[in-house]
């Protein structure tokens, strides 16, 4: 008791290190990274992220012994203008520490994974100098994300929000001068720009929400906003509705909801650890966090809540249908992420904040696991391809850990360093894979665990969290429940399809036949994530006394009664998931796909599958509706208005003509030559003649200077007399 009292205020002072630890890491790598070995750089970055995790854990502990009371730790004054008082304050409560733990925990594991992944990636793409840069960006991301989740005001949150957006841009465009197949192209940088611009639309909504908030509620600080909100909701409910809906635009941008989700699939252009960390586990959940954080606002306006829930559920189903028709292993996971984010947004929209946060956490575990395993599979394919191109003449069985050593050795041979013209081989295309079960057993089993967790099979983590969302929706909105249930069914289906296509059957490409298992630095973090994916459900079991997460978040969000397990709901969802996996086995597992064979779903579903395959032509629709008209208008403005009218006519003819006439006739001939020139010449002549006279005074005789002084004295005295 005595001890706990002495540390009640003990660990909150560490809060700034949430941000400073990763910043320190990135600064160290920025300064020394070029000289250091890759291991050293990766270790420093991982330690920086790990330090943030330790701080998060200590803060969570401090909150728990403080009985969940929110602590605001003020670090520095930022903006004080009039009634606007903005400080850099850390808000440490159960909600923010939960997010910190997820971000830094998953983040650290991905840092470690990335040491192995990037080691090979930079070699496959022939630019080893970028290894260091990758970890600098990664640490910067952790710092920005920590600012986001620890901010005490909407503006501080927005600072982090923009910071992670920047990191997302930098990392999607990490291989900015090539496309995903390492061919010279601007595809990757276009993907980065797309992500940035689409997020900008969302941020516009967030900013409008912020301005409204300051205008009507008088503050940005969470507590003050929430305190002022009920009165405003009473007198002018539309204000709160507007704020929450504009905020939803921001959420849709960051968390990839309809209609702004289009950037996330393209964001898969970034290296796989980035896809896992930023575009699956952490950054994209910022929108869910924002809605949860603003729970007191959303609770005031049920209409807005309903819209949020509908957007979430719609996204969940819509993205799930697209995922069914994708061939790229990461694209499937990207649409799956959008779909799962839809689940979370739907949950927080329904007011089931605990369920949403629960799914956020478990999703972070198993989606990170899936992405990283997919990365491992892709690397395995690349190794196989590399082996085909160069490995045979080595004449030694390069497998497992040795393969990375081999690439090391290869890098010393001059001829291998060059970019070999990669024929259109896509290591991420599932149609090239098949049969990886045998060559990559560890990755296979990890992938199975992730799939079962995502599909919601008892007793994996996804089962508990998804079930809680379904249960909540069945109690509130029946239509949303059905949307989500169908989405869950599709989820299990496309994951089953993926498993059968990637790991079973026969290799459909020579590279798949020669695929090699990944080294331990990649598989060990995956095992930890797999463990979390299995056990993560224990955070919040739907049994009396086991609602740990609900109780913990209740400190911040208000205590809610934990729901007991509903066997009917759980049974339906589990049965549907198993059914979906069974169907996928019938279609893809029983008769494995052969090379160059079209998808077996194509024939029975017809144009529906074509839609799924082509993402329902949403991108094309955006092009037709927004971008092409925009380009046409820009073209018109640039060519007709700016160039022909403004430049050719107004500038060249009117302004330049008038100017020429004026300058030649009026100014040059009269004003300049007769006026200014004459005056300037006269001034110069006058100065010369006066100075010629005065120069004689400066004769160098001290005595005559003294005489001048004397004259001055006499004159001054004379003035005094005559005055």
């Amino acid at each position, binding site marked *: 008791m005595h001890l706990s009292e002495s540390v009640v205020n003990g660990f909150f002072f560490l809060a700034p290190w949430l941000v400073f630890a990763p910043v320190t890491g990135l600064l160290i790598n920025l300064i020394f990274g070029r000289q250091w070995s890759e291991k050293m750089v990766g270790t420093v970055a991982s330690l920086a992220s790990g330090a943030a995790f330790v701080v998060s854990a200590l803060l969570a502990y401090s909150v728990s012994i403080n009985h969940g009371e929110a602590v605001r730790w003020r670090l520095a004054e930022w903006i004080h203008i009039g009634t606007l008082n903005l400080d850099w304050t850390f808000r440490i409560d159960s909600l923010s520490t939960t997010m910190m733990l997820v971000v830094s925990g998953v983040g650290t594991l991905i840092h470690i994974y990335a040491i192995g992944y990037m080691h090979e990636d930079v070699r496959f793409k022939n630019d080893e100098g970028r290894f260091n840069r990758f970890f600098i960006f990664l640490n910067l991301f952790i710092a920005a994300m920590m600012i986001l989740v620890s901010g005490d005001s909407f503006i501080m949150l927005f600072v982090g929000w923009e910071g992670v957006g920047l990191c997302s841009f930098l990392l999607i465009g990490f291989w900015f001068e090539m496309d995903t197949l390492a061919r010279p192209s601007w595809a990757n940088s276009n993907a980065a720009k797309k992500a940035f611009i689409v997020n900008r639309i969302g941020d516009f909504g967030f900013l409008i929400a912020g301005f409204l908030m300051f205008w009507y509620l008088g503050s940005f600080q969470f507590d003050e906003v929430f305190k002022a909100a009920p009165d405003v909701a009473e007198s002018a409910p539309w204000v709160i509705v507007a704020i929450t809906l504009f905020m939803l635009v921001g959420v849709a941008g960051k968390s990839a909801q309809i209609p702004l989700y289009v950037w996330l699939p393209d964001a898969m252009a970034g290296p796989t650890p980035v896809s896992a960390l930023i575009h699956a586990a952490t950054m994209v959940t910022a929108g869910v966090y924002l809605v949860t954080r603003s729970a007191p606002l959303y609770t005031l306006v049920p209409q807005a809540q309903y819209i949020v829930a509908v957007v979430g559920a719609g996204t969940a189903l819509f993205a799930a249908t697209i995922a069914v028709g994708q061939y790229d292993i990461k694209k499937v996971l990207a649409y799956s992420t959008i779909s799962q984010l839809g689940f979370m947004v739907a949950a927080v929209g329904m007011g089931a904040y605990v369920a949403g946060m629960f799914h956020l956490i478990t999703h972070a575990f198993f989606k990170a696991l899936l992405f990283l395993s997919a990365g491992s599979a892709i690397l395995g394919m690349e190794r196989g391809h590399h082996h085909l191109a160069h490995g045979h003449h080595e004449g030694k069985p390069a497998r497992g850990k040795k393969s990375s050593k081999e690439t090391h050795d290869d890098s010393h041979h001059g001829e291998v360093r060059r970019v070999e013209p990669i024929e259109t081989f896509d290591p991420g295309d599932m149609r090239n894979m098949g049969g990886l079960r045998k060559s990559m057993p560890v990755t296979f089993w990890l992938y199975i665990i992730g799939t079962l967790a995502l599909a919601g099979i008892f007793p994996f983590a996804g089962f508990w969290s998804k079930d809680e969302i379904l249960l909540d929706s069945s109690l509130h909105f029946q239509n949303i429940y059905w949307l989500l249930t169908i989405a869950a069914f599709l989820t299990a289906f496309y994951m089953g399809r993926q498993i059968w296509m990637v790991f079973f059957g026969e290799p459909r490409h020579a590279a798949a036949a020669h695929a090699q298992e990944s080294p331990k630095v990649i598989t060990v973090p995956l095992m930890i994530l797999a463990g979390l994916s299995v056990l993560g459900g224990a955070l919040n079991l739907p049994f009396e006394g086991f609602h740990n997460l609900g109780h913990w978040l209740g400190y911040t969000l208000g205590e809610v009664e934990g729901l007991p397990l509903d066997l009917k709901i759980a049974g339906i969802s589990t049965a549907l998931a198993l059914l979906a996996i069974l169907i996928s086995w019938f279609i893809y597992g029983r008769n494995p796909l052969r090379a160059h064979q079209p998808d077996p779903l194509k024939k029975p579903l017809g144009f529906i599958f074509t839609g799924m395959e082509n993402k329902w032509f949403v991108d094309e629709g955006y092009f037709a509706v927004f971008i092409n008209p925009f380009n046409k208008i820009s073209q018109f403005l640039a060519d007709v208005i700016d160039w022909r009218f403004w430049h050719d006519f107004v500038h060249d003819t009117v302004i330049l003509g008038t100017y020429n006439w004026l300058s030649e006739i009026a100014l040059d001939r009269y004003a300049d030559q007769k006026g200014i020139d004459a005056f300037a010449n006269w001034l110069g002549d006058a100065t010369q003649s006066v100075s010629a006279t005065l120069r004689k005074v400066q004769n160098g005789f001290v*005595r005559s200077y003294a005489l001048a002084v004397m004259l001055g004295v*006499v004159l001054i005295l004379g003035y005094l007399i005559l005055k």
Partner: protein
Amino acid sequence: MTSELIVFLVLSLVAISSALGMLFSRNAVYSALFLVLNFVTVAVFYLLLGAPFIAMAQITVYAGAIMVLFLFVIMLLGAESLAPAQSLPWQRPLAILLAVILAVESIYLVFARARSDLVVTAPDIAVNSMDNLREMAMTLFNQFLLPFEVTSILLLVAMVGAIVLTKQVKGEQR
């Protein structure tokens, strides 16, 4: 016309004429000697004004030390007289004109604008006592201690400066 005024006028005449003598002597040695006479006359004025210490200082420091130094330098350099002026022919008449105007102006200002009621009488015997000197010393070493010390530094600097200026640098050709 009191006797004091007569003494004043006579001494003034001596002072002014010795100053003129200094100005217009052709030989610099004569100039220096005229200046000594002027200084002595001023020292007598000091005595009349009840400042015996200053009067003695005037004679020892000015008329004694400084003027001897002057004479020494004049004779050392052989600068008793210079060649007749070549340059600045109008300098001399103009300077005299200005000096006359200045004198007239200042006399006019003193009498017409700054007339004072204050008078000066001859001191009694007490000013020559030790008490008076002691009291002056007390003022000097209490109220004016800092300037006094600064003066000592000034003298030191002047001494060092004079030595440095005239020092023959080793190896320098004369």
